[in-house]
């Protein structure tokens, strides 16, 4: 670069300074900032498992409901029978 002597004499003088270890700290901050954030796989799986658990519970309730109703019915029959007058057989 062919510059004038006056500029060459100035030797790119600059009065600015920086705090100690400034560039090292800045580099650390930047490399942290650009790191890809890990996807929250755990949270996604928790939602999926919870949904499946709720669905399974509901399915179980619907499947068992007729059996539960029958059990309830037969217990009621037993109570009613207890109050019936005794038959010849009894």
């Amino acid at each position, binding site marked *: 670069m062919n510059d004038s002597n006056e500029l060459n004499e100035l030797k790119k*003088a*600059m009065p600015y300074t920086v705090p100690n270890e400034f560039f090292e700290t800045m580099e650390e901050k930047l490399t942290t900032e650009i790191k890809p954030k890990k996807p929250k796989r755990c949270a996604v799986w928790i939602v999926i498992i919870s949904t499946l658990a709720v669905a399974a519970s509901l399915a179980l309730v619907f499947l068992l409901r007729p059996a539960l109703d029958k059990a309830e019915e037969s217990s009621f029959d037993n109570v009613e029978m207890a109050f019936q007058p005794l038959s010849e057989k009894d």
Partner: protein
Amino acid sequence: MKKTDDSDIIKVIRRRPERGFKLLLDCYQKPIYWYIRRMVVAHADAQDAAQETFVRVFRAFGQYDESQSLRAWIYRIATNEALRILGRRKGEEILSLDETSEDLFNLKADEYVDYSNLVGVQLQKAILALPAKQQIAFNLRYYDELSYEDIALATHSTSDNVKANYHIAKEKIINYIKNN
């Protein structure tokens, strides 16, 4: 230590972005910080603008056109960040290239300025008295030794305009120093 070539940096970033970015920082962190600092003067502002520059470089790298100079592309982003800081001080979104940053003329009192470096202070005052486009042309040519073509790319200008701005700036600076 052998200086990493821009083409090597690009190759590594494409393959291993984090490793490539570290290489890019090794080459450009200091030059970019000092380039911005010479324009905005205050260390805190230069720090903010430099960090923003590198974050933008990393995030926009997918859009970087390899037919253009990597150096010019990075300096263009840095120039915009510096002008944004200067513009904000004047209540504008971004400082126009024809404006001066007059409020910096007396070098804002800052613990990170060595006022005992009289030559340095005088030279910076001379530079800061110039319109932004002449400051940029001068700083990039004199301190960073960019080619006129790269400076033109960094400032959305032409090589001829950059050459003219640089020579006008040089004459004004030399006159300022002789008269002060």
